[in-house]
């Protein structure tokens, strides 16, 4: 359980090679491993298959990898915030596999949990049922869907200790815990790296067993839709 503590983001992503499958935590721009993504852009690694709920925006997050044409295939649930995404799909430069969000989250969980396939009602009778097994349980139809794993998982946490234990802040948790568990190699970008024993064992969201490397970094935390309460 000795974890690699990286001192540069460049070093943290150096083992990610062309044609790797990577999973990236986050929902919208919240909880994304900002600096790991930036380092991937710098690394110029290409032909990536990326599994992530969204694909960033044009100038931030996974959108940067897209702009740089580093992604061959994207598996996600909603990619509507990104014009370059649309251009590449229409030009046939980018392959997309759209999956209902809950099915995506559960497929990732299944991948990390050693479950090769499960049944879900989501998508029955819709275009995404094409080519999938439909099976009836207790009078209701379900689709069989398979677990997802990745060569590398990139997540972001609020705090991480030197044994790889992670805690997340508020809705920045989102896909991160299940993605951390589904990567052969999982690298965590943490806002604060702390000593082992600092985090309360009852409050840890991701046990260190799922994490192979950690690096501390400072995030911009861009806000997509600032919505404020009008002063009374």
């Amino acid at each position, binding site marked *: 359980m000795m974890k690699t503590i990286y001192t540069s983001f460049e070093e943290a992503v150096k083992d990610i090679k062309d044609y790797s499958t990577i999973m990236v935590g986050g929902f919208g721009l919240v909880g994304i491993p900002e600096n790991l993504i930036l380092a991937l852009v710098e690394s110029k690694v290409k032909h990536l298959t990326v599994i992530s709920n969204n694909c960033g925006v044009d100038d931030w997050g996974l959108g940067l990898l897209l702009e740089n044409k580093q992604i061959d295939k994207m598996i996600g*649930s909603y990619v509507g915030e990104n014009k370059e995404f649309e251009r590449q799909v229409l030009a046939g430069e980018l392959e997309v596999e759209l999956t209902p969000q809950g099915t995506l989250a559960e497929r990732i969980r299944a991948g990390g949990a050693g479950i090769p396939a499960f049944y879900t009602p989501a998508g029955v009778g819709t275009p995404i049922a094409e080519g999938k097994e439909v099976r009836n349980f207790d009078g209701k139809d379900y689709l069989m869907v398979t677990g997802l794993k990745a060569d590398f998982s990139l997540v972001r946490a609020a705090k991480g200790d030197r044994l790889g234990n992670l805690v997340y802040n508020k809705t920045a948790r989102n896909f991160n815990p299940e993605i951390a568990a589904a990567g052969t190699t999982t690298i965590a970008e943490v806002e604060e790296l702390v000593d082992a024993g600092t985090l309360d064992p009852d409050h840890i969201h991701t046990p260190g067993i799922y994490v192979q490397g950690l690096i501390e970094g400072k995030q911009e935390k861009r806000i997509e839709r600032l*919505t*404020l309460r009008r002063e009374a």
Partner: protein
Amino acid sequence: MAVNLDKALVREKIAKRAEREIENGFYVNLGIGMPTMVANYIQEDKEIVLQSENGLVGIGRSPYENEVDPDLINAGKETVTAAVGASYCSSAESFAMIRGEHLDLAILGGMEVSETGNLANWMIPGKMIKGMGGAMDIVHGAKKIVIIMDHVNKHGEPKILKECSLPLTGEGVVDRIITDRAVIDVTDNGLVLVEVAEGWTVQEVVEATGAHLQVSENLLSATF
């Protein structure tokens, strides 16, 4: 004769009527767009919990500027606060909660609804497909699914049809449709008109509906 209201007022009218679907003590998921507006009209005497599929059980009001936390958003990616007694969870847990039918109610937008409760609300062939997000899960994931939408499209054509022409989001999932003109229930025996909005007649609603509409024995008029 059909009433003319501006778009914002129509949306407000639908959202206010949809609010009446929310009972005291309900756990509710509100879809992105017009459904999110329903939160603005929740009566103060109701204690309810709004669930956000990105991992928040208990959405609070929008934050004042000094309360904004970039790590705290709703499924529409808007900054929010957490209500008293809220909890955070992962996306997988959030959808386990949804898929397991622990929500009492989901209010979602719609492009088309069929007479058997099929819903289409995620793609238009030939246009860029942005993705279904959580909609396909949510339509199977609440004890009651209410769709709110305009009664007709911008060309004046019915959005409630015998069969959806657009690719489906879910099959046989809709329980109730609330439009600017009516409230319609999807039953085992087809569509039943239960309420007609102020300014509309039963005849006008029937004519603007592309499927057979039974009129409830207990039909209410001008309820909203």
